[in-house]
């Protein structure tokens, strides 16, 4: 293991594993969020309460934060190192027909997603953790839980431009994942001539699920509520 993470391949392994971890998180996050579209918020409020109070989630939460930090930190280190490798650029560049736009712009796409993430955390997570959120009684009035549904629906119904930010954020994330998904497997070494085509297809499906899934939510409140 000597010096594995100081090598260029080792640094990419960190990107790959942290990326895969974040991709699993996105699926869980999307599943819970899609409950916003069910009924009048009872299901989502229960789900949000379960996620906020579950001890397993409490343990995962700091791990998730570390996952984000590592992914962003190593992306910055790798990008800075790679930029030094071509001091004089080409005066003319043409498309080779293979390289995707997302693959060339992962750092910029990731940066955009980070800006969105900060807005997103300020909108919801911060308020739920440290702010005043109206509560709602459930279980025949025996338990009081945060009315997370009202917090989310209130934002999306009252401010159309937040809906726009969330849709743009989801699309940027989708582009990021369209390369990130198969790229993570390639970096680990789980790829070959046959699987590369399959992984690319799965990557696009995954990216579309995430981008469309997260976009539906603000659009649902904007259009239907």
């Amino acid at each position, binding site marked *: 293991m000597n010096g594995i993470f100081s090598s260029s*391949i080792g640094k990419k392994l960190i990107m790959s594993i942290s990326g895969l971890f974040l991709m699993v998180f996105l699926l869980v996050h999307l599943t819970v969020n899609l409950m916003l579209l069910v009924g009048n918020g009872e299901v989502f409020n229960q789900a949000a309460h379960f996620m906020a109070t579950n001890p397993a989630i409490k343990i995962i939460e700091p791990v998730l934060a570390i996952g984000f930090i590592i992914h962003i930190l190593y992306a910055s280190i790798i990008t800075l190192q790679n930029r030094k490798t*071509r001091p004089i650029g080409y005066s003319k560049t043409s498309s080779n027909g293979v390289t995707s736009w997302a693959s060339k712009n992962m750092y910029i796409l990731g940066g955009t997603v980070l800006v969105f993430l900060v807005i997103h955390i300020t909108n919801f997570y911060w308020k739920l953790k440290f702010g005043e959120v109206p509560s709602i009684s459930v279980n025949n009035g025996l338990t009081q839980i945060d009315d997370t549904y009202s917090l989310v629906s209130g934002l999306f119904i009252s401010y159309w431009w937040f809906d726009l930010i969330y849709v743009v954020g989801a699309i940027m994330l989708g582009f990021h994942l369209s390369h990130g998904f198969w790229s993570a497997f*390639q970096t680990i070494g*789980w790829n070959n001539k046959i699987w590369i085509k399959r992984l690319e297809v799965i990557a696009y499906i995954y990216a579309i699920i995430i981008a469309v899934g997260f976009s539906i939510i603000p659009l649902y409140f904007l259009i239907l509520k």
Partner: protein
Amino acid sequence: MNIKLKIWRQPNAKSKGRFETYSLTDVSSDMSFLEMLDYLNNNLIREGKEPVAFEHDCREGICGSCGIYINGRAHGPQHRTTTCELRMREFKDGNTITVEPWRAAAFPVIKDLIVDRSPLDKIMQSGGFVTINAGAAQDANSILVNKKNADEAFDSASCIGCGACVAACKNSSAMLFIASKITHLAQFPQGQVETHQRVKAMVAKMDELGFGGCTNTRACEAECPKGISISNIAKLNREFFVAKLKE
């Protein structure tokens, strides 16, 4: 056909280069790109000017020396073709063609279109070989190799070390080059013995010499004149992690 050429001119490694534009008339569409440059140089010599320096040797696509960045593509617009095999019929009459050397910190320009590709040799010297005496032809025939392995090794061994992968990669990474050597040698009993040592040494050398890391843009396989797949890089990564874990 008549063409215009915008060519990078740089007298030596230390001087600052610049583009010069040349007009060339009566270019045959059957000329190879290098023959067209020969034709230009004949004209320049006749005019008492310094001819354009470019590297070339076999002119049949197997030596790897003629790497030039043409119109924003390594080895020009045609897929799986070295510059020497590229014909002028790929361009249109009246075209302006931009001709640049490989650009990478690891490949400094020596003169005009010639770059120093010796860092690839240094990577090879660090481990791209087998230390045993592999014997003569009859010895090779006495060691049985699975057909699948032999085919894969042959695909990887078709790397000519031209450096197009480095030139086309936005990170100037030599990963496809190393990956093809690792994959080639790891397919044979003679090469397998030293795979772990080899992969560690070659990757360390690549990092040391100022090549970048791989971000899986696939530009290398798109521009490789031999069409070497990035599946070789996946194998390199596997071999590298296994080698590091076994340390």
